C-alpha cells in the first residue's frame, strides 16, 4: 500500500508522509504534534487514545493511519469552536470529572461520540457506552454526571425545528 500523504484533521488538510500501517495515534502525536489523544495500552483496551473518524469513536492506537485517509478526523484539540468549549468539555469542568486527567481527552471523545449516537442517554446507556474507557483514578461517577449534564444542556438549548 502506498504511503499516506494527507489527512483531514479538525477540518484542516494536513500533509504527512506515513507508512500506512502505522497507528493513527502515532502519526497524530509524533508527526502532527497533536498530543491530546494519549497512549495508554496499545491494544484498544483503555480508550485514552479515542478520537472520532467521521463522527464515530475509534481507538487510534489500533487504527492504521490508512483507515483514516479520506475521513474526517476529530481530536480533542478540535472540539473548541471560536474560543468556546464543547458542552461536554464544559460539563467535565462543571462536574470536576477528573483527577490526573490523563484519560480525560479520550473520555470526552467517547462521550461526544455517544451523545452523537444518542442525544439523551440514560445512566445505564452512558455506563454501557463508556465501558471501554478506563479512568484509573476512579472518577467514573463524575464522568457519568458530566455526560448527563451535557445531554441536558443540549436538550435545553435545542431550537424547535
Amino acid at each position, binding site marked *: 500500500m502506498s504511503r499516506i500523504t494527507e489527512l483531514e484533521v479538525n477540518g484542516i488538510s494536513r500533509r504527512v508522509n506515513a*507508512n500506512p500501517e*502505522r497507528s493513527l495515534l*502515532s502519526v497524530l*502525536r*509524533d508527526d502532527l*504534534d*497533536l*498530543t*491530546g*489523544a*494519549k*497512549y*495508554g*495500552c*496499545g*491494544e484498544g*483496551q*483503555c480508550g*485514552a487514545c479515542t478520537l472520532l473518524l467521521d463522527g464515530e469513536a475509534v481507538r487510534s492506537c489500533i487504527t492504521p493511519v490508512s483507515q483514516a485517509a479520506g475521513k474526517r478526523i476529530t*481530536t*480533542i*484539540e478540535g*472540539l*473548541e469552536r471560536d474560543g468556546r*468549549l464543547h458542552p461536554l*468539555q464544559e460539563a*467535565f*469542568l462543571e462536574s*470536576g470529572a*477528573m*483527577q*490526573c*486527567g*490523563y*484519560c*480525560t*481527552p479520550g473520555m*470526552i471523545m467517547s462521550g461526544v461520540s455517544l451523545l452523537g449516537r444518542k442525544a439523551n442517554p440514560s445512566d445505564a446507556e*452512558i*455506563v*454501557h457506552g*463508556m*465501558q471501554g*474507557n*478506563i*479512568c*484509573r*483514578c*476512579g*472518577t*467514573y*461517577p*463524575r*464522568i*457519568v454526571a458530566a455526560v448527563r449534564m451535557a445531554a441536558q444542556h443540549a436538550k435545553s438549548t435545542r431550537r424547535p425545528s
Partner: protein
Amino acid sequence: MTGKFTRRDFLAALGGAGGILVLCETEPADAQESGRRAHSGDAKPAAISAWLHIGEDGTVSVFTGKTEVGQNIRTSLAQAVAEELHAPMASIRLVMADTDLTPYDMGTFGSRTTPTMAPELRKAARAAREALAGIAAEKWSVARPAVQVAEGKVFCDGHSAGFGELTRGQQLVESIGPGVPLTPATEWQVAGHSIPKVDAREVVTGKHRYTTDMKRAGMLHGKVLRPAAFGAKLASFDDSMARQISGVAVVREGDFAAVAANDAESAGRALAALKAEWQSEPQPLDRELFAYLKANAEPGEDRQRRGSIERGMAEADRKLSQTYTVAYIAHVPLEPRAAVAEWNGDKITVWTGTQRPFGVREELATALGIPEERVRVIVPDTGSGYGGKHSGEAAIEAARLAKAAGKPVQVVWTREEEFTWAYARPGGVIEISSGARSDGAITAWELHNYNSGSSAIAGTYEIPNQRIMFHPSKSPLRQGSYRGLAATANHFARESHMDELAHSLGIDPLEFRLRNLKNDRQRAVLLAAAEKFGWAKQKAGEGHGSGLALGFEKGSYLAACAEVSIEGGRIKIVRVTEAFECGAVVNPDHLRNQVEGSIIMAIGGALFERLRFDNGRLLNPKLSQYRVPRFGDVPVIETVLVDRKDLPSAGAGETPIVGLAPAVANAVFRATGKRLRSMPMSF
C-alpha cells in the same frame, strides 16, 4: 538545590528578580517506610521546605518540591496560600518539583503534603502578607495595624496598592520558622471551599503536556531491550543488524541495552533487530506464593506488644485462628513511566513523571557517575502514580541513550513494560489468632504479617493483650509502595477477623466493634457511616448482604459499609457508604473525589486484580489480561465527610482505599455464609 542557601542563590533561581521572598525553615520530615534512603551522602537535606516569592509585577510564585499526580495539591496548596496571603487564587502560581528551582523534598507520598507542606506555605503566605503591610505602612506613613490586605490589594485610609506596587525595588528576604499565627479553619474563606482544579481547562482541551507528550528539538525515541525473565543476565548480544538502520544509536552497559532512533517506528525496528540471549535463575510460581513467603520469612519484629497473649487466651470464651492473603497487584497508572533526557555540555535535564524528583536526581547522578549538581529533574504534572512512581527507571534509560546519541531522547514505556518492569504492591500472608469473652470484649489478639508490610498493622481497638509482628520476606516480584501501602491488606485481615469473631459470638458486627472501641474519632465515623447506610435496617437475604469495616491510617479515620449481591457466582457491589474524617477539610469536592476514586480503585484489588507469574515472567502484563475497575463495576457511592475544623488537616489521597475490601468480604459472608479470606475475592 542542596546544601546551604544564600540570598543570592534564591534571587538567582528567581532569575535575578527583586520583590519579596519568604523562606520556610523546618526540620526535614521523617523517612517513610519505603525503606529507601532519605537522602544521599554527606549533605543533609536543607532545612528549607518551600519558598514564596512576590515579584515586582505582583505575581505570587510558590516553590515546592511536591509533585502533582492527580491528587490536586496544585489546587489545595494554592488555596492555602490564597487564604493567608489574602490574594485571589488566579494570582498564585505554583512551581512544583523542579530540582533546580524548588527546595529539596523527600517525595510526594505518605499523605504528607496536606499535614506538612500546606502549613509551611500558609506560614510563608502569612509572613509575606505581614511584609507587604509593613512596606505599605512605611510608604504611607501610617500605623502598621491600620493596614489591611484583601483580594490581592493593600489599603489604608484612602491609600491602595497592588502587591506589585509595593514589591517594586524591594530585595527583601525573610525566613520564617515555627510560631507564625495562622487563620483557624473556622474562619477560612478560600481553604475549606470547593475550588475547582486550577488547570482543569488545560486537561479538557488536551493542552496539558504530560512527559509522554513532550517534544524537544532533535529528540529521538528510545526503546529498551528487556530481559527474558526477572533478574536475567545478558549472555550474548549482537547489535550489528540494528546499527544498519539509519540514524540508530545503540547503548550497551552490562545488562542494559537500548536503542534510539529518529522516530518510534525505526526505534521499534532497531529493537527487534537486536539479537540477545539471556540467562536466568529458576523462580517461584504464583501458585506457590504464600508458602514461599512464609518459608522465606525473617523472624521479624514486634510492632505492638501489650499484656500476655497466653493470659488473654485463657480468659477467652471463644478463640479463633485464621489466615488471610493478598495478591501482588499493579498500580497501572494510565500514563506509563516516561522520560525525556537532554544533555547540555556536562549537565543533564530530565523531565519525568515521578513522585520523588530529588530521589530520581540521586538515582541519575549515581547511574551516570556525575554529581547531583549537574542533574536537573523536572516533573510535569503527571498521569497518576498511586505510590507506583517513586523510582527513575525511564529517566536513567533516557539519560543513557541521550548521552550515547548526543541528542535529546524520549523513552515511553509500553503498557506491557509498565506491568512487567515497574514494582508491584506486595503480596502477603496475615495470620490472626484471637480470643474474646462472650460479652464481646476481645481479650487477645496476635497477628503476623508476612511480607505485605506494616502500615496500619495495629488497629484502634482496645485489646489488653496484643502481639503484632511484621515479617519481611523474600519477594519473587519487585515490590514497593502503593496507595495506602499495606494498610489495605492489614485492614482486610483485621476487619474480616473482627467480623468472624462477632459472628462466632452472635453479636452484631457494629455493636461488637463499638464494644471494643474507645477512640472518639473512630467511633464517630463508624456511627456516621452506619447511619447513612441504614445499618440497623439492613437485612440479609438469599445472595444479598451487607458488611462493614472501619479503619485508621496516616491521621485519617474511616468506616465503610458495603451492600453486595451474588449474581451467577459473581460478586456485585451494589452500594458503598464511606464516612471519612481527616481533620479540617481543605477542599470538600476534591476530598469527595479522592474518597470516591479510592473506593473504586479498591474494587480492583478486592475482586479481580492479581499479577500472575511463573519462573520470572509475568503471565498477564496487558490490560486485556489484567482487569481494572470500569464504569460497569461502580456501585452507588455515598460519602460522608466528617469535617473537624478543630483538628489539623491530614492527607486524604490514600486512606479512603482501605475499607472497601473488608466491608465487601463481610457482606459476602452475610449473603452466602461463605468467608472469603483471599484478595482478590472470588468463589
